[in-house]
């Protein structure tokens, strides 16, 4: 194999390039990359379209980025707008802007402070979701901490400790992003060892210790150790195993 030394790829202005292996990839204007990109640092400040996969160590998206393939990076930070057609794999993903993925996402730690839409599953060790989100599949995490800032929905949640609460102090820049300000979570099934909910509408909640807080509407609760229901919550049916 021919060994070539890696270089940087910097696209400024309106430009296009093929993919490849680089140290640093930076897109400042309106750029398109045709092919897979492999690099240490990926940064997009403008508008970028990647017709392929991205794999990097660190990725920062300040502008708007469209990835046609998979996006895998140890660290992903999204301050702008990211649309990922494939899967996302990461150690840590921070979303302060807006992210959409067409497939499932998988990683260690996800921190959301903006908006997120995942068409597949979300599998992480720790999920801190502080914005508004839609997950069409299963949210599977050891620790799920949801602080509601807008209307959110998820098909199912499964994990060890699941807490959903409503924040009292809205973050200013979020209000601009989120139009529907009804701060509630809709879910089908929520299953965990410890489940503490507020302002959640769910069909089934199962857990060992379950706490149903104000604003909840739950059709059926199944618990094995303890159940507490707030006066301001509606639980249609509950059963101790």
């Amino acid at each position, binding site marked *: 194999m021919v060994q070539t030394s890696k270089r940087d790829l910097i696209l400024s202005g309106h430009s296009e390039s093929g993919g490849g292996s680089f140290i640093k990839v930076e897109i400042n204007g309106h750029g398109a990359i045709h092919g897979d990109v492999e690099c240490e640092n990926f940064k997009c400040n403008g508008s970028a379209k990647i017709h392929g996969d991205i794999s990097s160590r660190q990725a920062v998206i300040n502008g708007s980025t469209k990835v046609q393939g998979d996006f895998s990076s140890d660290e992903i930070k999204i301050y702008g707008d990211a649309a990922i057609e494939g899967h996302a794999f990461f150690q840590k993903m921070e979303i302060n802007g807006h992210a959409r993925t067409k497939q499932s996402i998988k990683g260690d730690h996800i921190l959301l402070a903006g908006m997120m839409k995942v068409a597949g599953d979300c599998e992480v060790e720790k999920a801190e979701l502080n914005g508004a989100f839609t997950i069409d599949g299963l949210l*599977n995490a050891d620790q799920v901490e949801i602080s509601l800032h807008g209307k959110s929905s998820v098909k199912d949640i499964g994990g060890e400790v699941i807490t959903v609460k409503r924040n009292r102090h809205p973050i200013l820049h979020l209000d601009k992003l989120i139009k529907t300000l009804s701060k509630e979570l809709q879910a089908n099934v929520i299953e965990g*060892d410890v489940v503490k909910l507020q302002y959640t509408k769910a069909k089934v909640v199962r857990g060992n210790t379950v706490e149903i807080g104000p604003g909840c509407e739950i059709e059926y609760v*199944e618990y094995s150790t303890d159940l507490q229901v707030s006066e301001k919550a509606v639980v249609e049916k509950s059963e101790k195993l």
Partner: protein
Amino acid sequence: MDEGLISKKDLLEQTGITYGQLYRWKRKKLIPDDWFVRKSTFTGQETFFPRDKMLERINRIKELKDTLSLDELANALSPKKKDINLSREDFIERNIVSSNAVAIYEEHFGELDTISFKSSLYIYLLDQSLETGEVGWEEGRQIIQTLHDHFPKLEEKSTSLIVLRKMGVVTVLLVTNSDDFYVDEKTKVAVLLDIDTELDKLLNSLVTGGF
């Protein structure tokens, strides 16, 4: 309700594991996704599992989880990530497979020095097929070729290897999730191997063989 299935509720009760553990194991791919069977019941949708496979898998995880980390466990349970190479001599000497099976494989793919885990699985399956006495040298080559061409696509699923024989003509099939199937009366099922089960057997014989 289907007798071969166990509901999630019963499973947790019987095995004493928690939701947290179940979901963690699912995340780590210790439990294959296609074992999660969703069915609607009177309380809405519920998840079921294939009873025997699931109970066996959970016992195995419980046995091993004190000594191995979850990632190591995932390696031990998933053939794809298994990264070992065996020498050809060890493989034959320790009676894991017959030298015939290795010979068929080598005739097809060339001489082997070391055997990757995947090849060892193919050879093992071939060997198991040969042992039934229903398949010969020529059919063996067909089996190896089929496994080599198509098994990687089915790896994450539970797959069976089936060899059908009709009027001396042999067909090799790789089928996923085959609980039951029927053939016409002139066709004979020469070999039917559940690859997950065979994989476990192979792993056991490798472990007892000191690998």
